[in-house]
């Protein structure tokens, strides 16, 4: 390498050729966002109802906590390659790994959100004649909303990173640039791809952080 690879990466990013067509940056970024949204959405369909139920009833809490903890030990690259080999090329293999990896954060966010409500407040709601469903939907969930959004934040961070590894097993997304660069020893392209993924990850994280702050119920801000 002769020149400064960071400057060359900047040139790569500034080149209009890389901003159009099916393998251009906007398209790859959209793919990446699409994978992330789909993965978090499917995982939320599974994990949020279970988490809310666990938090509200306290049943199965030990299992949920243990599952969320043990899942942290699972290597993402291992799951991506394992599912790719088992299910073949296509979107189902990476999607399955996104869902598996997003579930623990969402589950933990949902049950800790419900649990965070002050028991005295919940009892007061019950004494007012609220049904269990009303207590959950009108008291516990609104009070715990920042924690629930926190679960989505953790899951999104996880899936954005995993979606990049999906490019390794033949899918699209911004990870493509890193692996193309790796294959052709094109370090500037790898840097450019890395910068794009980092920007995407940080923007998503900031949006969710802001949502987390905005959804905190007024007068009941918890640390």
């Amino acid at each position, binding site marked *: 390498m002769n020149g400064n*690879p*960071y400057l060359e990466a900047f040139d790569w990013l500034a080149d209009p050729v890389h901003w159009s067509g099916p393998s251009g940056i906007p398209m790859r970024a959209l793919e990446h966002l699409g994978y992330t949204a789909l993965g978090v959405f499917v995982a939320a369909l599974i994990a949020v109802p279970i988490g809310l139920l666990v938090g509200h009833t306290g049943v199965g809490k030990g299992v949920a906590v243990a599952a969320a*903890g*043990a899942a*942290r*030990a*699972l*290597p*993402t*690259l*291992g*799951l*991506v*390659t*394992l599912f*790719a*080999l*088992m299910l073949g090329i296509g979107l189902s293999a990476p999607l399955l790994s996104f869902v598996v990896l997003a579930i623990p954060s969402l589950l933990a966010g949902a049950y800790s959100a419900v649990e965070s409500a002050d028991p005295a407040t919940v009892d007061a709601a019950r004494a007012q004649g609220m049904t269990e469903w009303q207590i959950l939907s009108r008291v516990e969930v609104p009070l715990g909303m920042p924690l629930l959004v926190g679960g989505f934040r953790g899951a999104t*961070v996880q899936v*954005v*990173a995993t979606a*990049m*590894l999906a490019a*390794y*097993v033949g899918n699209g997304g911004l*990870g493509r640039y*890193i*692996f193309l660069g*790796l294959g052709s020893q094109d*370090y500037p392209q*790898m*840097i450019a*791809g*890395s*910068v794009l*993924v*980092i920007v995407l*990850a*940080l923007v*998503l*994280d*900031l949006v969710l*952080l802001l949502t987390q702050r905005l959804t905190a119920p007024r007068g009941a801000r918890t*640390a």
Partner: protein
Amino acid sequence: MSWVLANLDVIAGYTGSHLLQALPPILLAFVLSLPLAKLANSRGWLRTSVTTSSGLLYAIPSLPLFVLLPGLLGTGVRSPLNISIALSLYALALMVPAASDGFRSVSRDVLGSATAQGYAPTARFLKVELPLAGPVLLAGVRVVAVSTISLVTVGGVLGVPSLGMLFVDGFRRGILAEITAGVVLTAVLALVTDGLLVLLGRALMPWTRGRTVKRS
């Protein structure tokens, strides 16, 4: 299974380099987090900004960080040192907020009593504050250890030797047993380390036996 039995030496080698990349960041993050957390706790605004920036640093996916660092550090993309430095940053991003919470969980009254009893600042820190913050620190180190051991594998796609190589090689050659062995071994390595940390915690903090600590 036959693949595993035929390649025990390869697996052992990868496990060794895996641990060599994972353990120093865990240790380093723990040691560095103590002064950094004390410093962060000394000012409200500093604590807030440390917590926020740690959260953002943790949002950066590991592979891009592995790619960006070599040019700055003068290491190569395939250097294990590069992986360890990136993992140290992640470990710090998790550990500093945890240590900050840990020190905040120690009652000011207790610290005041210790001073009144004649503890000098250093002795007070080592004999009163650190042990009382211990359970929360332990909870933090456990999270750091498990996530670091799991993250090392990502270096496999860059060709850095670790159990992650079993995923890369297994995928390339279509050997399901090789990938499965890698997933199981990584998880086992993480969970065994976690178990050892729990035992270490019990030995160092006998008063916490039978209690679990949750970080708010």
